[in-house]
């Protein structure tokens, strides 16, 4: 079975006061469509964007992204 990168950005946005996808996109420097694609596991972001998301929520990278 092939491994896949999943994430819990939706949960982290909720915990960050229901932060909108647009707000997160603007803070990270991508489009809202990219955030939507990441949340749906349809796109794996670059390391740079992954770190920016991690910095935005103030949690470690492996807390957001899982590889299994």
């Amino acid at each position, binding site marked *: 079975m092939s491994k896949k990168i999943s994430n819990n950005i939706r949960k982290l946005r909720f915990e960050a006061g229901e932060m909108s996808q647009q707000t997160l*996109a*603007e803070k990270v*420097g*991508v*489009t809202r*469509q990219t955030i939507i694609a990441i949340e749906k596991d349809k796109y794996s*972001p670059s390391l740079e964007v992954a770190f920016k998301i991690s910095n935005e929520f103030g949690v470690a990278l492996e807390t957001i992204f899982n590889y299994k």
Partner: protein
Amino acid sequence: MDFSYKEKGLIVSLGVTLLIFGWYLYGAFSNLSLNPELPGFVEIIILIIWVAVLESIIQGFLALKNKSQLEDERDKLIEKISYRYGYWFLSACIWFLMVQILLDARFDHLPVLTTPYGMFHLLLLFFVLAEVTNFVVQLYYYRKGF
């Protein structure tokens, strides 16, 4: 179905390309048996300007509705993949023509391959189809993800 700004732009580009070049090439290939002269340079330039102007006008209207239209890494990656498909498609078509020339016009009963008019429009068709491939692959990846 919810389309993003990028997808709407692609659909517009695809539509305009198919409509204008489709209309032109349909007319061109319909006249093939009459063995007409090559179209003028100005005629082709006007056609390309029409496509560019129409696309710009419609994209402009779309941009008015969407304020955040920056391009990010995902857009660039999808664009890169789609250009690769377009390139392979165009290469295959050009190789077909080269083999045809090497085989000394094996299909010489086809006016499209034996007259300059036919060959010119066949090449134009290949370029347009490569561009269409590019748009379709982009739309596919925006919908499907990867």
